[in-house]
C-alpha cells in the first residue's frame, strides 16, 4: 500500500439527512454534489458520487422503507473525498450477490442501481441481513 493510501481518512464535516420522501432523495444527492464541488472534484467525479448517492438513497426509500443518509467530507493525505453512509431498517437485501451483479430488480425496474453505484465509486460496502436492514457505505476520492 502506498503511504498516502495508508494515511487515515480525516473527517472534515459530517451531516445527517433524513430519507423519508422522494424530495429527500433529491436533497441528499444535491448535497452530495455540493460537497464534491467544494472538495474540488472534477465534473466526472461529481457526476459519479451524485449518481451513486441517488441510487443508494432511493433504494433505502423504496426497498428499505426510508432511513438516514450521512454525508462526510474527507481528507486522506491531502486527497479530497466524499463519503455516503446510508442506512435503513427495512427487510435487507435478500440476494445480495445477485443484486450486486446487476440486472436484478424486485420492482421490475432496471436493477442497475446497486451494481451501477458500485462501479462509480472507489470504495463500496454493503452490510445487510434479512430483517436487520441495510447499510451502504460508499466513498469517492478526487482525482489527483
Amino acid at each position, binding site marked *: 500500500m502506498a503511504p498516502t493510501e495508508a494515511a487515515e481518512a480525516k473527517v472534515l464535516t459530517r451531516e445527517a439527512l433524513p430519507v423519508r420522501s422522494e424530495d429527500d*432523495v433529491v436533497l441528499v444527492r444535491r448535497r452530495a454534489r455540493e460537497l464534491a464541488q467544494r472538495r474540488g472534484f472534477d*465534473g466526472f467525479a461529481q*457526476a459519479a458520487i*451524485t*449518481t451513486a448517492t*441517488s441510487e443508494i438513497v432511493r433504494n433505502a426509500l423504496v426497498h428499505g422503507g426510508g432511513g438516514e443518509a450521512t454525508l462526510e467530507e474527507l481528507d486522506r493525505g491531502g486527497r479530497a473525498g466524499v463519503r455516503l453512509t446510508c442506512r435503513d431498517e427495512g427487510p435487507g437485501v435478500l440476494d445480495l450477490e445477485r443484486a450486486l451483479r446487476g440486472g436484478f430488480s424486485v420492482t421490475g425496474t432496471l436493477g442497475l*442501481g446497486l451494481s*451501477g453505484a458500485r462501479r*462509480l465509486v472507489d470504495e463500496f460496502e454493503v452490510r445487510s441481513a434479512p430483517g436487520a436492514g441495510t447499510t451502504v457505505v460508499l466513498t469517492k476520492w478526487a482525482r489527483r
Partner: protein
Amino acid sequence: MRQTGQVPILRVAGVLLVAIQVDLGDTVATALQEDVLEAIARTGSTGLLIDVTGLEMVDSFVARVLVDTGRMARLMGTETVIVGLRPEVAGTLVRMGFDVSEVQAALDIDEGLERLGCKVVRRGAD
C-alpha cells in the same frame, strides 16, 4: 404550450421540444413522461426532442424514463432524439452498464432538429 411542474413542452417546426432544466424527482419525471405522450397525441408531432443540457445527473430512474418515453413515442409513430447529454453524464451511464444502443442522440438542438426534420419531410412526402 403546457407545463409539468417546471418543464415546458413546446412545439418548434412541427417537432415537440422538451427542455429539462431542473433535477427531477421521480414523480415529476414520470408525470413529464405522461404529459409528453399526451402532447404527441394532441399535436400529431412526428418528432420529439428531449434537451437534457440542464441535467447534471441521470441515474437509473431518470434514464429509464427517458428510454421508455422514446419507446412509447415510437409506438405512436414519433421519433425521439435526446440532445445535450453532458459528457460526464454520458460517461456515468455507460460506466453503470446501461444499454444505450436504442437511444438516438445528437449534440445540440440544431443537430437534433435537422435529424428529425429530414424524417418529417420524408414522411409527409409519401
